[in-house]
């Protein structure tokens, strides 16, 4: 919230960090690290998103309720994806009729 005015230097720093992370994610995508590629891609994206939320969106300086709102939306998104996948990862595709 506006009670806390963050210096413009912080914004610039965050911007540069975001650019650097974008370069990293593109560089990593150019090499084959197997499963690790997805991990890095998601890790970098989550880091970037966290930076934007904390600094550009001022979540770091917001009241606790704001954190609760962000957390609960993420938790419910996680529930959606996790319980969805319980049905998908445990089965062959397309479904096989033969067990014996």
């Amino acid at each position, binding site marked *: 919230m506006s009670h806390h005015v963050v210096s413009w230097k912080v914004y610039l720093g965050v911007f540069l960090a975001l650019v650097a992370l974008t370069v990293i994610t593109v560089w990593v995508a150019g090499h084959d690290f197997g499963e690790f590629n997805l991990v890095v891609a998601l890790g970098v994206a989550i880091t970037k998103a966290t930076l934007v939320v904390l600094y550009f969106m001022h979540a770091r300086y917001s009241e606790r309720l704001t954190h609760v709102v962000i957390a609960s939306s993420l938790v419910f998104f996680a529930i959606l994806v996790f319980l969805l996948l319980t049905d998908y990862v*445990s*089965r*062959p595709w397309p479904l*096989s*009729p*033969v067990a*014996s």
Partner: protein
Amino acid sequence: MNPAFPLFPERASTIAPEVDAVFLFILGVTGIVALGIWVVMLYFAIRYRRRSDDERPPVIEGSLALELTWTIVPLLVMGVMFVWGSKVFFHLNRPPDDAMTVSVVGKRWMWKLQHPTGQREVNELHVPVGRAVKLVITSEDTIHSFFVPAFRIKKDAVPGRYNLAWFQATKTGAFHLFCAEYCGTEHSRMIGRVVVMEPEEYQVWLAGGPAPESPVLQGEKLFTDLNCITCHRMDDAGRGPVLKGIFGRTVKLASGEDIVADAAYVRESILTPAAKVVAGYQPVMPAFQGQVNEEQILALIAYIESLRTPTPSAPPLAPAAGRTQARGASTR
């Protein structure tokens, strides 16, 4: 086939009494609870009805002991229901090994069924009493649901998937077969009968129709007609892998992965051969997507399965069989 005004459905399969037992158990428990709450509520409402406008009832804030009681006791009782129901569900989803397989294809608005011996039927299924029947269910268009109330079984027919159900009829007669998943205009006409017969009668019935062709034979014929046989030869001189004995075994793919050659893999390899090529072979096989229908694929799978070595206990099969079983379990 039914009394004019039935209140309880017929019981005509081995699983039906199991399902009914759960039903009656839950009915009993919930009946007692419901009755109890109604009686208590009405008793309080009448006993403590307002007699004068000046009444000032005592303050009762609540009781932790009561709250805990009516949280924990229902949880325990429901735990029993859950475990019991899951047990029946597993039973419903595990066909016995000696079951005869009937393939079921839903199509708006009819059921197309085929016996292991090749007889085809539409909207009518003849089965012998006392014999386990496994249903492999799929659909050609939209989702349907294969429902026989007297057997207490139901399974969706989903396009692109094979779902499993099974039953073992315990009495002869004709029973309703319904489509239970809404599938369009004539949904309510997508009904038929399951006719349960004495085994001898069933044999007579089987002999009655036009000379049938078993899915294995049909598959063999297709195998020739579609020219599969030119590459998948019985010796290893062909351009494709030898299919004899491959079914159910683990094969190595060009990508280095291992895969169990089960029905799903065979199906995929017919439709999109390039997806998972066996190690040592070139991806030269044409895709058959759109050239074979679901029933033909089932026939081809049946044929390839029939080429399997008859003794499934051979050592190289052991791990594969284990995995297949796990996969099979998860399909149901």
